[in-house]
C-alpha cells in the first residue's frame, strides 16, 4: 500500500490504503468524516456525493487512486459556518426527515447552482435524478433548490424557523 495524497476540505492528507478503496471509506473510516453517507455502494442512490474539483461525484465508486492529488469537498467543508445558501434553504424549508440522504442532495445542489444559478424544474430533475430519499422529501427539496437559487443570486440569507439553541443530544 502506497501513500496517496489528497486534499479534503482544504486540508492535505496522506493515506495508506489499497488503491481500489472507494473514496467514501477513506473519508469515513480513515479520516473520520462521517457526514458523507454509505447508501448503496454502486452509485445508485447519491447519499455519498462529494465534490471532486467542484464536480458532484459519487464517492462510493470513486477509487482513491483516481482522486489522488485532487481537491475534495465534503458536507463538513461546504461552508465554514453551516450557512451556505443551500444549507440555509434546506433549513428554511425544513427539508430533512431522517436526513440520511440530505448531505448528498445538498452537495449535488451546491454543484448545480455553481454552474446554473437559475435551474428549471427539469434541470433539477436531471441533477437530482440519481438521488433517492426514502422518506420522500422531494417536494421540499425542489422548493429548497429554487429558494437557494434565488438566495444565491440575491446573496442574502432568510431566517430559518425557530429551533432551540442547543440540540446537543440530538446529534
Amino acid at each position: 500500500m502506497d501513500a496517496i495524497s489528497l486534499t479534503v476540505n482544504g486540508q492535505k492528507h496522506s493515506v495508506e490504503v489499497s488503491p481500489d478503496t472507494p473514496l467514501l471509506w477513506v473519508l469515513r473510516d480513515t479520516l473520520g468524516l462521517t457526514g458523507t453517507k454509505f447508501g448503496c455502494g454502486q452509485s445508485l442512490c447519491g447519499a455519498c456525493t462529494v465534490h471532486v474539483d467542484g464536480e458532484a461525484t459519487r464517492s462510493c465508486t470513486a477509487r482513491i487512486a483516481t482522486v489522488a492529488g485532487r481537491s475534495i469537498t465534503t458536507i463538513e467543508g461546504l461552508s465554514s459556518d453551516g450557512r451556505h445558501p443551500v444549507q440555509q434553504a434546506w433549513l428554511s424549508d425544513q427539508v430533512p426527515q431522517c436526513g440520511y440522504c440530505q448531505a448528498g442532495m445538498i452537495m449535488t445542489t451546491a454543484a448545480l447552482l455553481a454552474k446554473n444559478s437559475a435551474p428549471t424544474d427539469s434541470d433539477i430533475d436531471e441533477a437530482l435524478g440519481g438521488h433517492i430519499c426514502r422518506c420522500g422529501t422531494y417536494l421540499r427539496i425542489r422548493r429548497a433548490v429554487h429558494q437557494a437559487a434565488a438566495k444565491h443570486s440575491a446573496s442574502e440569507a432568510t431566517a430559518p424557523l425557530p429551533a432551540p439553541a442547543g440540540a446537543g443530544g440530538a446529534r
Partner: protein
Amino acid sequence: MKTLRTATNTSRREFLKSTAAGSAGLLLAFYLPASASTPGAPEQDFKPNAYIAIDSHGDIRLVVTRSEMGQGVRTALAMILAEELGADWSRVKIEQGDCDPQYGDMTTGGSMSIRSTWDPLRKAGASARDMLLTAAAQTWGVTREECSPTGDSVIEHKKTGRKLTYGQLAVKAASVPVPKDVPLKDPKDYRIVGTKRARVDGQHIVIGEAHYGIDTKVPGMLFAVVARPPVFGGKVKKFDATRALAVPGVRNVFEVPAVEMPPLFGEERKPDSGHEHYLWGGVAVVADSTWQAIAGRRALTIDWDNGPGAEESTEKQRATLTELLKTDGKELKKIGDPDATISSAAKTIEADYETPFLAHMTMEPVNSTASVHDGKCEVWAPTQNPNGMATALAGVLNLPQSALTIHITLIGGGFGRRLCIDYGVEAALISRSAAAPVKVIWTRDDDIRHDYYRPISHHRLRAGLDARGQVTSWLHHIAAPSTDSTFLGGEVPDTGGTEIAGTGLPSGTVPNYLLQQSFLHTAVPRGYWRAVDTNWNHFAVQCFIDEIAAATSKDPLALRRELIATKEKPAGGGDNEGETPVNVDRLLGVLNLVAEKSDWGKPLAAGRGRGIAGLYGFGSYVAHVAEVTVAKDGTLRVDRVVVAVDCGQVINPDLVAAQIEGGVVFGLTSALYDEITIQNGQVQQTNFDNYPMLRIADMPKVEVHLVPSHEPPGGIGEPGVPSTAPAVANAIFAATGKRLRRLPFQTQELAKS
C-alpha cells in the same frame, strides 16, 4: 438495567398493529420516576422527574425517550414537555435517553410515540411548572394564586410586576414536594403545541454533523461485515478463511452462530409453536476498515447447508396462495349468515387482489456497533426497539440486564425494520469473539436480502347485493404468511386494515360478514413494514369498494358515504381488544374534505382520472384522492395526491404534513415499482437498480389538509401510506376502465391494443 418484563408488555405487540389504534385504556405504562440521576450534573439542578432538568442558569434539558428516525419525535415530544412546563423554547436542549427502565417502554412503532406520551409528558411538564410556581410564591411570601407562568421560563407576580426565572427558582423548586393531579393547560392557551417549529436536529443534519448509528466511533473499534446464509434458514457447513485472512487489514474470520432469539416485545413464547426466530448466523470478517472487511468477505469460500428453504420460489408461493383461496381458511370474524345471503343475493361481485413481499430499504443500511468485555455489553444501535434488544442481548450473552448499556442513535430511516433486534445481537456476538469494539456494517445487498419482509398476500373479496343494490353480505378471504409467527410461531392472523380492524368501511351497514385467513408457511421472515398489514389488506378493501360502486353505477365517494352512514360500530363490531370504535363523523369529515379540496366530481380530460380511498387507522382519520394520467402506451403518471387528515390535536403541523408527504411517496413506491421475489429460496433483488424507489422527477404534487381538532392526538407516521395505492388504483380505473388488482401495478395491461 433491571428487567422490563411487566404485564403491559404482553400488549406491546398489539400497539404496533392497527387493531390497537388509539385506545387510551391500553396506554403503555409510562411512569414518572421521582428523579433522573444524570451523572456529573450539578446538585442544584431542578430534576422533578426523568424528563426535565433545569439548572440555575435557566438552561432546560428535556429527555426524549423515543427513537428519532425522521418523524420528528425529538422535536414533538420536547414541544409537549415545553408547552406544559411553560418553557422558553429557545433555551431548551434536547437529549436522547439511553435504554433505561426508568423510562418504561421505549419502543418506537405503531405510530404510538405521541399517543403513548401525550398524557405522561404533559403531566411531567405541568408538575414541574407547578413546583416552580410554588417556589416563586414561597420566595415572595405570597399565595400561589397570585403567581402565574408567563410561558417564557418565568413566574410572574402580577400585582407587583416581580418576576423570577426558572433558573433563579431551580434550587428552591428542587425542595418542593412533587404535586399530584396538577391541572393541564387549556388547549386555547397553547403557545408551542400546534405551532410550526423547526426540527431540533435540522442544523446538524445539513452540516453533516448528525450522528447516525453507522457513524459511531469508539476507541479501538474494528469493522466487520458478515456473509449470511443466502437461503433463509440455511447454515454454514464449512468455510475456508485462508484467502480472506491474506487480505491486508483483515484481523479475524469466524463463524457467527445462528442463536435462537426471544420474541421482539416481551411476549410469552408458546411451546411447540414452531417458533422460527433465529439470528441469521454466518461468517464474520473483522478488519481495520469497512472496505478491507468487504474485500475479505469476497475472498471467503463458504459451503452452505441451504436447508428446506431452498425449494421456495415466488412462483410456487403464488400458486400456493391461489390454492389456499379455494378452501376455507381460519375464521376470524363472522356476523350473520354470509354464506347463505351471498348464495341468495340478487347480484354478486367478486375480485381477487395480490400484493408482494417488500423490503424496508432504509437509506442508512442496517448496522450496529458493540463492545463486549469484562462481563459488560455496550451497544450503539439505530433501534426502534431498545427494550427488545436488551432482552435478547441479556439472554444470548447470558448477562444480567444491569450489565447492558444501549445507546439509541439517530436513525437513517426505520419504517419498522429496526423493530427487529437481529443486528444488535449479531454485533455483540462479533465483538465478544473479536475481543474488541466492532462496528458491523451491512452492505446494501446484505440489507435487502436479509430483511424481515412485508408479507406476500392474496385476497378474495365477495359481496352480495340485494335487488336495490344494497350490500347485504361481504366476505374477505386473506391468504398470506403470518407476520407475527416469524417471532412467535403459530398462525397469528393479520387483520390490520381489514373491515374488522376498524378502518371504518364498511361500517355497520353490512349485516352479513366473514373474514378468514389461510396461512402460507415459508422460511422467508416477515416483519413490520410501515403501516403493517393495514397497507396490504386496505389495498384490497378500498379497491373492492370502488368495484362495488362501478357495478352499481354509484359514485365511489357516494357509496362510501352510504357504507358509513350509520353511527353504529363497523362491520366487525369494533370490539377487538384495544380497538376504538370508528367515529363515523370524523371519517366522513376527511372524506368530504378531501373531495372538496381535490375537486372531486369535476370532469377531467380523456386518459385522466381521480380515485379515492380513506380509512381510520393508528388513531387517525385519513383520506386520499389521487389524480393520474394514463398514456395510450400504458405509461402511468401520478399527477397529484390530495390528503385530508384528522389526527386530533396536532403537535406540529409541519411535521404532520411531512409525514403525510412521505407516506404518499412510500405508498407510491410500493404501488409502482417494488416486489421482492424468491428463487431457490433466495431474494433476487440486490440494490436500488432492481428494487427502485420513486425519484424526484416522478414526484406528484401532494397537498395535505388538516382538520382542526382538540381530540387526543392520533398517530401520523403510518396513516399516510395505506390509502395511497388504492386511491391510485381507483384513479387508474376512472381513467381507463381497467382494474389493476396486483401490486406493483402491471402497467403493461393499460396499453391500448
